[in-house]
């Protein structure tokens, strides 16, 4: 069944969009990532203009994150104070990021810089996560005691300490605030929720328990992506609500299923899978940058 999208001005298959939303929702529920780093390239691939893809996926992430976070609230795996600190940082970062994005667009190199930052960030994070979680699984298999994470590093020497009861942490607010700013910055520049940066940062930098990380990250993503959706809708008019609705219907169902799968899996297994996914997307983007494209010319219209 073909559907004509009013803002994107293209006609696409409704069931394909539902499936795409479902797939991304599943990952969102399992890993606590918004899925923006997957859905934006996929939408561009099926012929949606890039600017519409970026803006609309932000809107879709709001819905799938709300659906996911509610399940986490019921299981009490959302650290609200931590979420608020990350959110404050995220909004600051998104505001700065929008300025950077517009500046890059004026230089005409935004595509390249988005691709490059995808490759660099996904590569580093995916690689580190993969090595760490494979080691953790190996230790668990060999019957040794579970890996003792280093509890004290420079993070614990900073002032403005605050108690985060759900996470069982007593740390300074500066590191989570910085993580929030970085995520907000990436969210605006790369057009993603930023969960794939935030989740590892929370695990490895803030030492939050993995089960709490997912819910808390979803909580922060809701508000940062809502903020970017409004920015896109009011400045570029690129949010396609019909496209978003189809992705959302698929996505919310996927997110529910994903949250249940995630709850049954071991934290190490989840991390290996997420690491592989991140590396796969990174590899695809890197190949696109390195191989000679079949068509050297591209045509864009309305700044898309």
């Amino acid at each position: 069944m073909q559907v004509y999208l009013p803002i994107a001005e293209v006609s696409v298959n409704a069931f394909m969009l539902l499936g795409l939303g479902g797939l991304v929702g599943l990952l969102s529920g399992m890993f606590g990532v918004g899925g923006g780093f997957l859905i934006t390239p996929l939408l561009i691939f099926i012929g949606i203009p890039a600017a519409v893809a970026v803006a609309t996926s932000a809107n879709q992430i709001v819905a799938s994150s709300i659906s996911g976070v509610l399940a986490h609230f019921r299981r009490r795996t959302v650290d609200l104070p931590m979420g608020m600190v990350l959110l404050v940082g995220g909004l600051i970062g998104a505001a700065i990021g929008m300025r950077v994005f517009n500046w890059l667009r004026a230089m005409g190199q935004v595509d390249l810089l988005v691709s490059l930052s995808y490759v660099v960030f996904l590569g580093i994070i995916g690689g580190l996560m993969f090595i760490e979680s494979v080691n953790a699984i190996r230790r668990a298999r060999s019957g040794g005691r579970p890996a003792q994470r280093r509890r004290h590093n420079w993070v614990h020497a900073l002032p403005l300490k605050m108690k985060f009861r759900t996470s069982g942490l007593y740390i300074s607010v500066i590191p989570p605030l910085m993580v929030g700013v970085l995520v907000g910055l990436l969210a605006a520049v790369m057009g993603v929720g930023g969960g794939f940066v935030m989740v590892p940062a929370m695990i490895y930098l803030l030492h939050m328990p993995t089960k709490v990380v997912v819910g808390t990250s979803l909580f922060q993503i809701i508000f940062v992506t809502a903020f970017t959706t409004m920015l896109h809708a009011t400045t570029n008019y690129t949010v396609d609500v019909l496209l978003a609705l189809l992705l959302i219907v698929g996505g919310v169902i996927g997110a529910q299923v994903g949250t249940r799968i995630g709850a049954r899996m071991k934290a190490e297994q989840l991390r290996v899978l997420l690491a592989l996914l991140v590396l796969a997307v990174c590899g695809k983007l890197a190949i696109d940058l390195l191989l000679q494209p079949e068509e050297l010319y591209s045509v864009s219209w309305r700044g898309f």
Partner: protein
Amino acid sequence: MRWLVALLIWAVPAAAEEVVADLSQNRISITADFDGSEILIFGAVKREEPLEGVPLEVVITLSGPSQTVMVRRKSRVAAIWANTAAVEVDRAPSFYAVATSGPLSQVLSQTEDLRHRITTRRAIRAVGAPQEVLDLPEFVRALIRVREGAGQYQLREGAVSVREQTLFSTSIELPANLVEGNYEVRIFLTREGHVINAYDTVIYVQKVGLEKFLYVLAHERPFIYGLMSLALAGVAGWGASAAFRWLRP
């Protein structure tokens, strides 16, 4: 009175052969399930003198609203393929189809093509390109190639069927990703490459119903539209969560 008739006759020299044409539809509505459309263009040649010897040819163009487009070229910079050159094309039609009754080079002369801007290359206007880009024609060729690949530009030689040098018809496929606006249809009668008569009309392409409502709201009340999108996302997210809890407590 007599001088007025004389003036009219002088001002409008009666063409020896004149096109009379019509379309299967002159209004296309883009609804939610719009999936492309086919336009049938047909007509006849009105004559006041007996038929000449050289056969008559017909060239039909269908042109969508003009856009300013950016054509970018990639080249290798330190192992990475990046956009290194760009040309802004002032006016390129969003859709352009040329249908002819025979090989284009035979039915239309170069000078007539220049005068009436008939072929795709002539319909695109690229001036004011940056000075450092010397291979402007290469960029315009690339624009045509990319859009031909997407079905936005079509050249269909021999697609117009002409009967008895009087009746002609053709059909043009409009793609699903149609842009709103006025689509200009031009019909040229040619003989030995020269345009002897022309006719033009317009097809109105418009979004209707829900499509129209959303498009207008997004552009005229963007803040409300944004809030509506977020509210929709919120309700859908909460609704799915509640539904799943009800299904599997």
